[in-house]
């Protein structure tokens, strides 16, 4: 079966946002802030203009350009359920100027949103297949919408494995979700940390060690992998060793995209513009590209 990363549905046409100019953001209001880890927060946002919010539909794997007014703009992936129409969530790690400024914002503050941009996880073309999701650290944020989508349409898919790894128990994001998903009989959730402590009662070790407990049927399995480059590298190597073909391993790449629409040139790897042709690719599509650590 030929499997390529799916193209998103286009809303609002290609050229314009409802603001009339694709570089001018829409205003969104922070409704809720959840502290995930010491340096990670999840922001629940709603577009100020109700009409915009009602027609704001996006696919798992897509991203927005988030403006923190006074600081600048950065690309952030969606992290909530795509079926939720009244709001959406972005999970932000405080690293640079924009994301640190984002962390200083409070409930009720306004931010700017441009998007949705990019393509999405192949969730339509993989119906009927087994899904294996492998995520590491905050790399689980872009996969979270896909998990919600699969769980909402659970009968359309075969086996569903969810593997999650983090550095320490404190670095685990979406703890409530993982607890809830672990309780479901139709999902097999495995968690690990690199360094455990007394509170940790799951596995200890890198995320690839969890693959030993997964029965992969290469003829009907699709793996979606997201996390730090080094984790993606070893996961892909492991999956290939277990017989999964290169076009069944899907991952999401990351660059500091300044525009999101294929113009600024910052996200190019060779001739591939990650923002418009990605960020989701099969391993087959990207294995010959330079500058990747895998």
């Amino acid at each position, binding site marked *: 079966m030929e499997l390529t990363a799916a193209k998103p549905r286009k809303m609002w046409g290609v050229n314009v946002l409802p603001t009339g100019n*694709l570089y001018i953001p829409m205003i969104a209001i922070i409704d809720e802030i959840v502290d995930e880890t010491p340096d990670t927060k999840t922001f629940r946002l709603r577009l100020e203009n109700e009409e915009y919010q009602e027609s704001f539909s996006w696919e798992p794997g897509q991203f927005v350009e988030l403006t923190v007014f006074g600081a600048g*703009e950065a690309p952030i992936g969606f992290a909530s359920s795509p079926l939720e129409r009244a709001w959406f969530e972005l999970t932000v790690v405080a690293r640079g100027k924009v*994301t640190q400024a984002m962390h200083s914002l409070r409930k009720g503050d306004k931010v700017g949103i441009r998007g949705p941009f990019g393509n999405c996880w192949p969730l339509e073309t993989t119906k009927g297949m087994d899904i294996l999701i492998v995520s590491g650290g905050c790399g689980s944020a872009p996969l979270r919408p896909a998990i919600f989508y699969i769980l909402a349409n659970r009968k359309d898919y075969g086996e569903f494995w969810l593997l999650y790894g983090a550095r320490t128990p404190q670095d685990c994001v979406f703890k409530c979700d993982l607890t809830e998903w672990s309780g479901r009989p139709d999902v097999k959730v495995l968690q690990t940390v690199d360094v455990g402590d007394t509170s940790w009662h799951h596995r200890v070790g890198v995320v690839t060690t969890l693959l030993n407990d997964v029965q992969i049927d290469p003829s009907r399995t699709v793996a979606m992998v997201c996390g730090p*480059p080094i984790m993606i590298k070893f996961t892909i190597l492991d999956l290939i060793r277990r017989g999964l073909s290169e076009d069944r391993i899907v991952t999401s790449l990351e660059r500091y995209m300044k*525009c999101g629409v294929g*113009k600024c*040139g910052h996200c190019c790897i060779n*001739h591939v513009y990650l923002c418009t042709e990605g960020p989701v690719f099969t391993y087959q599509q990207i294995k010959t590209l330079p500058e990747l650590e895998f």
Partner: protein
Amino acid sequence: MKSGRAYILTKSDAVMFFASLASTMRIIAPRKLVGGDVMFGAVSSPQEICWDYGHDIYPPKRFIFPHFEEMFSYTGDGNIEIRDSGEAPQQAIVGIRSCDVRAVRFQERFFLSQIEDPYFKARLDNTVLFSLVCNKPPRKECFCICCDAGPYLDSGFDVQLTDLGDRFLYEIGSDKGEKVTTQEAYMLKEAGPDDIAKRRKIELEADSLFETTAYIAKAINYISSDEVPPEVWEDLGSTCFRCGACTNLCPVCTCFTVDDLQRLDGSFIRCRSWDSCQYAGFTREASGHNPRPTFGSRVQRRFYHKASYQYIERDGTHGCVGCGRCVTTCLTHLGLPDVVKRIRRAMHNYLEPQQKVSEV
């Protein structure tokens, strides 16, 4: 006055022609500065236009894709109000060279294909290009003839002027060129066979005077198929100062960065400005990770974009118009013709031992 036809505009009429044009749009043309340098800028009267200049080292693309452009402004306090600052004055760029016209068309394809860039579109829509044929290559570094971008054009211009001594050959190349000519059409008359013959002579002469050549085809092969070993790129990159002049003076380069800056009154502007893939910070991420960490990898990036089949397929042509600005400006011979030459030379050295191995 029809597109695709050639007319004659005498030089004395040309002053009146552009004076009349100046009443409806601003005229951007080469003009002599105090120190004697010639640079493009808005001229207040057509007498200022310097017709016998070489070319402007600072590419005139800056009047369509400005070096620094304000996109919108917003207030910083709780109540956010965004105001679009895009401006696009009616303008004629007079005396722009063939290579720069080709570069503008390259940018047009890039910025307006797939997803339209609104700021670029607005500026280009309001711009008329009066290109000026190079009767001889203006600089010894010019190699437009290797890139199908000069010294004269058969398409891409709105109006093309050729200096025939006391008169200009006036060719109309687009609807926009036709429209801008209509009002002053009485100053033009049909070009005669002598004028056309004189133009042909100039073409032949100009073609024979180029000193720099870029034998780019084989280099495109090597770069596209990723055959150039990393050591060769690192060797090329080892002399780079990371000044970014090559990309900042390139009339084809399109990359930009986006920043939010605070004004004195406390409000903010979002602006975009030219960026360079030769800077280490171009790809550096907030985590400190840089996917393009070495000078060699950045030089490779630049030439992959300029000379690879993958980009030719994307953009319709390779990303160089042969204006020679990177040759003039680079202190360490990382202009396109030099790099092409060095890649070809290095590849021959690399290929030889391999051939010996296969013989054994």
